C-alpha cells in the first residue's frame, strides 16, 4: 500500500512529465509569450498615465494610479509598480526555463524549430528586460532558471550589463527568425503574432535610441551612448523590407476587422470569447458608467475616468482625425448626468466587445511602421545620417494621413516628439519618448501648472522620478540585496 504515497496531480501537469515532446516545447514557448498580455495595461498605467497625456484626478476614492499620475513618491507598495517588476521576471523565468530545457532535452525538437524557439524566446527575454530597464533602471540579471535561493545572491546589475544581454538576445533573434509572417499562407496563420527578425530589428533600434538618451545623473535607461548610427540602418532595413507599409487610414490601423495589418511589426495578441485570452486595456481609462450608459452589461470594475489632458487635446490641429478617433468627449449617464471631460476610446469597439470588460479582442500594437518611420527621423535629427527632408517627409506623411493639411518644414526634435505624441497617443509610448529625448523634466514641470487646476499634482518632478522605485516586496524578500532608487528611500 505504500505505493499509494506516490501521488501525482490528477488535474494539472507537473514538471517531471513535461518537456518530452516538441509539442510540449511549443506549449512552453506559448507560455513564455503569455506574460506579454499584461504589457498593454502596464503601458497605460505606468507610461501613459505618468505622462502629460492624462490628467487623472480620482473623484470617487483613491485609485492606485493616482500616485503614478500625480508624482507622489509613495510608490514602493504600488501594485502597478510591483506588477511591472514581477510580471516581467515571470516572463524571463519562463524563457530561461525553456532555454534550459531546450539545452538539456531539446533533442526531441526538430532543428529548424529549435532555432526558431531559441530566437523567439530570446526576443521575449530582451523584451521583458527592456521593459524593466525603462521602468526601474538597474535590475538583477538572470539568464538561466534559478531556484529562489540562488536568485537571492544576484544583486541589481548595472544597466549597461543588462543592455548587453538585451542586445545579444535581439541579435540572436535577428539571426534565427524569419522576416515576417503575413498570414497569407495557411501554414503561417498559427505564427502570426510571433516574434520575427524585423520585430527584433525594430526593438533593437529602439534599445539603441533609448540607451543613447541622457543619463539625467541617475542610473536609468539612458547611458548617453550616442548609438543613433547603429539604430538607423536597422530601421531602414525594416522600412525597406517590403513586408510592411504605411496604412492610408489612421483608424484602419486599430480596426477590430483589420488586425495584423501591414502597419503592424509586432503586436500582443488577444482573443475575446470568454476563454481568458481577452484584455481589459480598451476600457481601462473609461469609467464603469460609460458602459452602463451604453447599456452594456459589464460587471462593475471600479473603473473611473482618467481624462485626457487638455494639453494633448489642444495639441491636435483642427480636423485631425487622430483626436476624434482616439478620444471622445464624455458621455451622458443613464440618469442624465453629462460627463464633459474627454476619455480614451481608441481601442473601444462596443459592438465587438467580449463577454466581460476584460474580454476585448483587439491586439495591442507594440511596434508599427509609423513608429519605426518616426524613430528613423529621430535618428537623423541626432545626426546619424539621412537628411532633414527625410525627417520632414516622415512627419508630413503622418500629418497628411491624419487630415492635417499644413505641411511642416525644418522639423525640430521637439516638433517630432510632439508629432509622436499625437500619433502614438494611447499607445504607452509618451513617457518613454520624453525620457529618451531628455525632455521629460522640462515638459512635465511646465505642463503640471497648466493642467492641474485641482491642485493635486506634485509641482517639482525631479530626475529621480524618471524611474520607479524597486517594489517594497522585493526589498523585503531579501533585505539588503537590492538598493533603492534615489528619491524613494
Amino acid at each position, binding site marked *: 500500500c*505504500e505505493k499509494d504515497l506516490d501521488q501525482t496531480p490528477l488535474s494539472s501537469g507537473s514538471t517531471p512529465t513535461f518537456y518530452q515532446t516538441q509539442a*510540449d516545447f511549443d506549449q512552453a514557448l*506559448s507560455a513564455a509569450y503569455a506574460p506579454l498580455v499584461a504589457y498593454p495595461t502596464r503601458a497605460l498605467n505606468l507610461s501613459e498615465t505618468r505622462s502629460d497625456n492624462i490628467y487623472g484626478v480620482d473623484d470617487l476614492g483613491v485609485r492606485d494610479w493616482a500616485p503614478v499620475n500625480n508624482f507622489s513618491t509613495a510608490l514602493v507598495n504600488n501594485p502597478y509598480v510591483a506588477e511591472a517588476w514581477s510580471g516581467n521576471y515571470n516572463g524571463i523565468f519562463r524563457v530561461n526555463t525553456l532555454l534550459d530545457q531546450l539545452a538539456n532535452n531539446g533533442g526531441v525538437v526538430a532543428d529548424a524549430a529549435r532555432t526558431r524557439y531559441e530566437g523567439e524566446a530570446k526576443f521575449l527575454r530582451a523584451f521583458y528586460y527592456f521593459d524593466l530597464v525603462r521602468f526601474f533602471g538597474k535590475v538583477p540579471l538572470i539568464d538561466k532558471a534559478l531556484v*529562489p535561493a540562488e536568485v537571492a545572491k544576484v544583486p541589481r546589475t548595472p544597466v549597461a550589463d543588462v543592455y548587453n544581454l538585451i542586445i545579444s538576445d535581439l541579435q540572436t533573434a535577428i539571426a534565427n527568425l524569419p522576416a515576417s509572417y503575413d498570414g497569407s499562407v495557411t501554414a503561417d*496563420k498559427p505564427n502570426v503574432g510571433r516574434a520575427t527578425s524585423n520585430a527584433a530589428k525594430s526593438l533593437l533600434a529602439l534599445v539603441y535610441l533609448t540607451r543613447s538618451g541622457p543619463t539625467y545623473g541617475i542610473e536609468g535607461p539612458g547611458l548617453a551612448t550616442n548609438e543613433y548610427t547603429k539604430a538607423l540602418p536597422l530601421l531602414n532595413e525594416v522600412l525597406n523590407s517590403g513586408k510592411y507599409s504605411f496604412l492610408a487610414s489612421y483608424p484602419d490601423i486599430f480596426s477590430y476587422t483589420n*488586425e495584423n495589418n501591414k502597419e503592424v511589426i509586432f503586436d500582443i495578441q488577444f482573443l475575446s470569447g470568454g*476563454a481568458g485570452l481577452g484584455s481589459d486595456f480598451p476600457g481601462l481609462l473609461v469609467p464603469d458608467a460609460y458602459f452602463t450608459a451604453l447599456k452594456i*452589461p459589464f460587471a462593475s470594475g471600479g473603473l473611473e475616468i482618467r481624462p485626457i489632458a487638455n494639453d494633448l487635446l489642444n495639441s491636435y490641429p483642427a480636423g485631425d482625425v487622430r483626436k476624434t478617433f482616439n478620444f471622445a468627449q464624455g458621455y451622458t449617464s*443613464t440618469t*442624465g448626468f453629462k460627463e464633459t471631460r474627454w476619455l480614451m476610446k481608441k481601442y473601444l469597439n462596443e459592438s465587438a466587445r467580449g463577454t466581460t470588460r476584460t474580454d476585448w479582442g483587439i491586439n495591442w500594437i507594440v511596434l508599427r511602421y509609423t513608429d519605426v518611420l518616426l524613430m528613423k527621423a529621430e535618428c537623423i535629427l541626432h545626426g546619424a545620417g539621412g537628411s532633414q527632408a527625410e525627417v520632414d517627409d516622415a512627419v508630413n506623411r503622418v500629418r497628411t494621413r491624419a487630415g492635417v493639411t499644413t505641411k511642416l518644414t525644418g522639423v525640430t526634435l521637439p516638433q517630432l516628439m510632439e508629432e509622436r505624441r499625437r500619433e502614438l497617443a494611447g499607445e504607452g509610448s509618451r513617457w518613454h519618448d520624453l525620457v529618451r529625448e531628455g525632455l521629460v523634466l522640462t515638459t512635465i514641470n511646465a505642463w503640471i501648472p497648466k493642467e492641474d487646476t485641482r491642485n493635486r499634482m506634485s509641482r517639482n518632478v525631479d530626475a529621480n522620478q524618471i524611474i520607479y522605485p524597486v517594489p517594497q516586496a522585493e526589498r523585503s524578500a531579501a533585505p539588503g540585496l537590492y538598493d533603492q532608487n534615489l528619491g524613494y528611500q
Partner: protein
Amino acid sequence: LQARPFAKAVAEWQLTGRVVSANNEGLPGVTVVVKGTTNGTTTGADGGFTLSVPETAGSLVFSYIGYQTQERKFSGAETLTIKLVEDTKALDEVVVVGYGTQKKGDVTGAIASFNAEKLQERPLARVDQALVGQLAGVQVKQTTGVPGRGFSVQVRGAGSITANNEPLYVIDGFPLEAAAQNASGRFGSGSPLDNINPNDIENIEVLKDAAAAAIYGSRAANGVVLITTKRGKSGKPKINLNTYAGFTQAVRKLDMLNADEWIDRSVEIINANWVNSGPGRLATQTTTERQAALKVTTIDPKYMIDDRWLQPGHPGLDFVDWQKEAFRTGFTQDVQLAASGASDFVNYYVSGDYLKQDGMVIGLGYKRYSARANVEVKASDKFKFGLNISPSYSITNDPGVEGKDNLLHLVVTSSPVVESTAGLNTNTGNFTYYNWGTTRNSPLRLLQNSIGDTRTFRTLGTIYGEFQIVKGLALRSTANIDNTDAESKSYTPAFVNGSLGSRQAAGSYSGFRKQTFVNENTLTYSKTLGGKHDITGLAGYSYNFTKLYAQALSATGGFVNQAVTTLNAATNISGTGSNYTTETQSALISYFGRVQYAYAGKYLLSASIRRDGSSRFGENTKFGVFPAASLGWRISQESFMQGITPISDLKLRASLGYSGNNGIGDYSSIATLGIYNYTFGGAQASGQAPNRVNNPDLKWERSRTYDVGFDFGVLKNRLTGSFDYYTKTSKDLLLNIPVLSAAGFSTQLTNIGEVVNRGLELELTSHNLVGAFQWNTSVNVSHNSNKVVHLGVGDAPIEIVSAYDIPNNILKVGQPLYSIYVVKQNGILSQSDIDGGAALYGSETVGDPKYVDANGDGKIDPNDRQIVGHPNPNYIWGVTNSFRYKGFDLSVLVQGQNGGSIYSLFGRAVDRTGTGQVDNVLGLYRDRWRSPEDPGAGQRGKAYSTFGRIKNTDWLYSSDYYRVRNITLGYDLGLIIKKSIAQGARVYVTAENFFGHDKYTGGFNPEAVNTGGGDNNFPVGVDYGGLPLAKSLILGLNFTF
C-alpha cells in the same frame, strides 16, 4: 412418597424478592447468584425472582450491566427488596482516548471532556456550536450567521501561520479528513462536522496536549476532538422524543445614518464639491445658479443637490431603512425520535431527526434530515461486530448574504433615500437607480429573489469487528467511509441584476464529492500483574485515502427564459477559469503503538509513537515519526495523604510530545504546471509552464508540546478541577515565504519559521449546594499567547498583502501572529495643528483626521504604521451555573473573551475617509467635524475629504465580549405524568444570546469571517459584512417512553 425423604435430605430455603432501580421500577434480567456457586437465576419482567438455596447462610450477588453489583447476606428464607444503584461512577471514570478508553484516574494527558447530555436541551444546529464556552483551551468562533455553516474551532491557539488550524475530528474511532476554514470563513469541501446531528452525541473529549493527541501523529498538532455517539443501555428499550420550536432574531442592527442624516451629509459633500470645482463657486448658490455657471440644463448630482431634500415632506422621495426591510423574525423547529436498548447480545441506538431554521434575514434558511443507527452484535464471548451508519441531507438557502459586496454589505451601505416611484424596487425591473444614490440593485429584492442553495448529502459509516484472541488480547478492525455529495446552485434573475436596459440573469452551479476511506487495525493487550501493575499495550496500522472531485459551471451572459434557472438555459457558458472539473487525492499510511502503565493506581506512565507516511509530503520526506510520553502521580493515593481529609483527589501530570500538521494541501511539494495560453493569428495557442517551485523536501509542520498540570478534588469532590500550563512550539511551518520575483515566482512554500503558543487552563466544577436545592457551577478559563519566533530567511518581517490598500497585518519575530499594523488616528486636525507643522497624509486639510507620525519624519505615510493589537484574545472563558429544585432546573451559560482586537475591513467599508456622497456610513458621522466652530465629537473628520485614506486605527476594535449564550429553564413533568404514559417528560424554555456586550461597532459580529483580506499566500479571513448572532426563544419538550 419416595420423593419426600430425598427432598427432605436436601433441605432448602426459599429466597424470593424483587430487584428495583432507584425509582422503584422493577429491573428485569438481573443476574442473581449465590456467591461462590453457580446456583442462580435472573429476574423476571417485574424484577421479581425466586431462588432455592441449601440451608446454609451465605450471600446473594446481584449483578446487572450498567449498575453496581450488590451483595446481600442471608441466613434463612427471606423476601428481599434490592435496590440497585446505577454504576455512574464507573462510567464517569472511563474516558475515551485515541484508540481506546482509559480510567479517568489513570489519564496523564491533557484531556477536556464535555458531557453532551445537555445538547438535546438546547436548540443547536451543529456540534461546533455546542462547544462554545464549554472547554478550557478550546476556542470556538461563530464566524458566520448563515445557518448550517461550520464554525472555527481552535485548540490552544494557532500553531500554524498558513496551514490548517482546525483540530482533527474522530467520530466513534473514525478519523475524519481534516478541513481548514478558507479566508472566506468557509470549509470549501465541507467541515467534518457538517450534517452531524448534535442530539446523537453522547460525549466529546478534546485531546489537547501532545501526550494525548500524538497517537494521531501528523494530524494531531491542532488537537484532536473525539466524538462518541449514543449507544443503547441495557434495560427496557427506551424511546425518546425531543422536540423544540421557537423564534430567532438578530441581536442587533448596525447604527448607520438615517435618511435625514444621510441627506445632511450629502448636502455637505455636494456643496464642498461645488466650491472646490472652480473659482467663484459658493455653497450658497442654488441649483439654477450652478447650472448657469456650468452652462448646462441638466442636473449634475456631483455638484447639485436634490432640491426635494429640503422641501417639507421630501415629495417624490421615500426614506428607507434597509436593515429593517432585510431582517425578520426567523423560526426554528426540530423533532428527534430515538430508540435505544441493549440485551446481552445486541446493543442498539436508532434515531431520526428533522431540523428546520428560517433565518433572521430574508432568504436565509436551513433544513436537515438525519438518521443514525448504531448497532453492535455480540456474536459470542469472543467476537463482537458492529455497524454505525448515519445518512443525512441538508439544504442551506443563502442568497449571498455575508461578505464583501454581498447583500448584507449592500443592505447597510445602500443610500436610505429612493425615488417614491421605485421605492424598494430601486434599480430593479423597469426602475433605474436614484440619481444621488447607490447604483446597486435593491438589496431587498435581491434577498427575496436570488437563489443560493447548497444541498449536502453525507453518509458516515463504520463497520467493525473485535475478536478476543486470548483473555486481555483483542484485535479490532474497522472500515470507515465518509461520503459527502454537495452541490450549490446560485441564480440571480435578470430583473434584479445589472442596470436598466442591460439586465441579464446570472447563474452558477458547483459541487464536490468527497470520499474518505479509512481502514484501521489495532491489537490491544491489557493485563494486571500481581494486583498492582496495570499494563495496556496497543499496536496499530491505519490506511487513509481521501479523494475529492469538484466541478463548477457559471454563466453571466443572461438566460434565454426567465422561468428557467438551470444552466442549460444560459446564453453562454464558456471559459475555463470558472468552469471545470478537478480531482485530487491523498493517502496517509500509519503505524502506531502505545504503552500505558500504572502502578497501584499511583504512578502512571504512558508513551506512544506514530509513524505517518503521507502522499502530501515531498519525495525526500515521505515519513515522519511522532513520539510522546507522559507521567502522572496520584498523590492522593499515597498513604501519607490519607490523613489529609479535605483533599479527596490529587494528581500531578507532566507530558512531552511531538505532533504534526499535514494541512498543506495535496501535491504542494510538486512543481505543477499552470495553463498559460496565448493567441497567435486569432487562434488560441495552448501554453504550459511551472506555476510554483518544486520542493521535494516539503513536509509536515512539527509541534513540540510540554504540558504540566494537576487534577484535584477537595471536600469529597464537592470542588473538582484541573489546571494545565503548556508550551507548544511549532516549527518547520509551511510558509509561502516571499521570494524575489526575479526567480519567476513571488513566493515559495517552504518549511520554515517557528511559532510558540503558551497558555494556562483552569477548569473548576463546584457543587455549591447539594440537597433539595442544588446549585452547581462550572468554570473554564484559558489564557493563550502566541508569538512568532522565526520567519523566513533572515527573519524578515512579512507584511500580509491586503486586497484593500496597504498591508494591515504583519508577521514579525517576537510579536503575536498577524499583529495589526496600522497608523494611529489621534483626533482631528485643527488649523493650529497644521500651522504648527503637524504631520499630514497627502493633501490633508483642516477637519481631516490627525495621525500619529510614528517615525517622526514630518509626514504621514505607510512607514508610520505601528503594531496596535493582535487578533487572538488573551483570555477566553465560560461559566455555567445550574440550579435544580424539585422538578425545576435552570442553567445559565455565560461566555466571553478578552484581550484581542479586530481590524475590520467592514468597518472600513462603512466608515472610511473620503467615502463618496452616495454610500451610507456609520452613525459615528453624526458627530463629525463640520467647522472649527462645530468640531463634533473629535472622532470623525469632515464628510468632504479628498486626501484619500490610509489603514489606521479607525477600523480597529477590541474583540472583547461577554455573552449569555444560554438560559434554560426546565420542569420535570415526570412528577405530574403517570409512568404508564411516559417514563420521563420535561418541558423547557431556552433563551439563547439574549444578553451580552461587545465593542465591535463597525460590524455585526466580532468573530465574523467571510472575506479574504490577505492574498493567496497568507489568506487572512476578515469581516466584510458578517451576520449578527441570532437570539432565540425556544420552547422544547423531552419525552421518554
